[in-house]
């Protein structure tokens, strides 16, 4: 039970300072640690470097930290759909380092797994490779990318036990598992806090060793960024919905 905290503010106590690097799980608004983001906002820390695939939308998720100018730099793969972000970025107030989404995911995974650098085909011959070492292996060209390790990771899971074991739900998993491994301290918010043994140990996505503090959150209604539906009785429902590269 030592890992369990009462709320987001208490769970982050002593962990926040200006100019730190924070990893923040989620893809779009799916699987974001919203209450922990709120607590970071309330703390007033600034000059943050945020590692997150996206930057939230105006007034939601990381969009909140942007509104209060607490972010100095984002390391992300896609930051569309956010006017405040665009304003600060175009005004030179905010630095952004774009990483291809898979490179970002792998850099985080590498950071957590003690791998300081690895090679990937992704981005060879593009702006992403500028200033980076490139190398040929077996006739193919690769770029060297570095592992990422943060001061703090904040993640969201569906279920967690008091030992810190976590299980994610559907596509809300996304960046959360790697980020949980790639920071000095990881704080998790979970929708369902249970006792050890209640999660089938074969189905735990993040072993408790990675989670230092955990809180239960009251999810209420989760936000949906793009509500897309089909009508009942559609003659030819799409075989599948479209993807994207965001």
């Amino acid at each position, binding site marked *: 039970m030592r890992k369990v905290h009462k709320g987001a503010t208490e769970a982050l106590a002593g962990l926040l300072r200006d100019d730190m690097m924070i990893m923040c799980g989620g893809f*779009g608004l799916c699987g974001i640690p919203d209450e922990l983001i709120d607590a970071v906002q309330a703390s007033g820390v600034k000059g943050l470097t945020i590692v997150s695939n996206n930057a939230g939308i105006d007034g939601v998720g990381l969009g909140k930290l942007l509104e209060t100018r607490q972010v100095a730099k984002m390391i992300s793969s896609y930051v569309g759909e956010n006017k405040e972000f665009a304003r600060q970025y175009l005004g030179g107030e905010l630095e952004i380092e774009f990483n291809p989404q898979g490179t970002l995911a792998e850099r985080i995974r590498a950071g957590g797994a003690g791998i300081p650098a690895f090679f990937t085909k992704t981005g060879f011959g593009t702006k992403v490779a500028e200033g980076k070492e490139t190398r040929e292996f077996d006739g193919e060209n690769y770029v060297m990318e570095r592992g990422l390790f943060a001061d703090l990771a904040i993640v969201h899971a569906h279920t967690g036990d008091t030992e810190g074991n976590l299980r994610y739900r559907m596509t809300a998993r*996304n960046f959360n598992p790697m980020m949980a491994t790639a920071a000095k301290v990881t704080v998790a918010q979970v929708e369902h806090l249970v006792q050890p043994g209640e999660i089938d140990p074969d189905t735990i996505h993040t072993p408790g060793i990675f989670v230092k503090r955990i809180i239960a959150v009251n999810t209420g209604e989760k936000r*949906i960024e793009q509500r*897309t539906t089909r009508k*009942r009785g559609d003659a030819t429902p799409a075989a599948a*919905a*479209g993807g*994207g*590269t965001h």
Partner: protein
Amino acid sequence: MAWTREQMAARAAKELEDGFYVNLGIGIPTLVSNYIPDGMSVQLQSENGMLGMGPFPYEGEEDPDLINAGKQTITALPTTSYFSSADSFGMIRGGHINLSILGAMQVAQNGDLANWMIPGKMVKGMGGAMDLVAGVKRVVVVMEHVAKNKDGSESAKLLKTCDLPLTGTQVVDLVITDLGVFTIDKKGDGGMTLIELADGVSEEDIRAKTEGEYKVGLK
């Protein structure tokens, strides 16, 4: 005359094979899922961490935890599996996805692709596009043959060399436009070849709107 978006999607669907695992980009590529032949098993990957993507949900059945890479609400299928972003891009980078169908701003005759930024405009990021074009076994671009500029003029999109920042070098295998279909010998020196004409389109129509060099090998 030229192909409609639906016709382009239908043409792209001919690249599917039974048992394929496929990643579809936003826009016209999304429509390809409507043309999967009956009885053919094709599993769609969504790079945010899902294989076996189902159709949009019925109204009222949207689940905030279940979205595709375009952040749209979707549904699961009996074949569905979920995984992390690292595992998803391991799958992509490792060459396990058979086919990626995506849009483009420009394609060069050597297979270079540009689809993520326009200098001077707000850059939103490349998302997973660079990983997809570098990692997926076969890359098919579906796009309008030319770009329409604000002043009403047209700019070629099939070029000798892309002038926009690249998403990937020598990555495109096939280009489907509203006017026709081109193969590209991306790893060799075979260049670009026009293999099909859209309905009512002549080779001269295409020649006038294509800056890149290509051979003609109509099937």
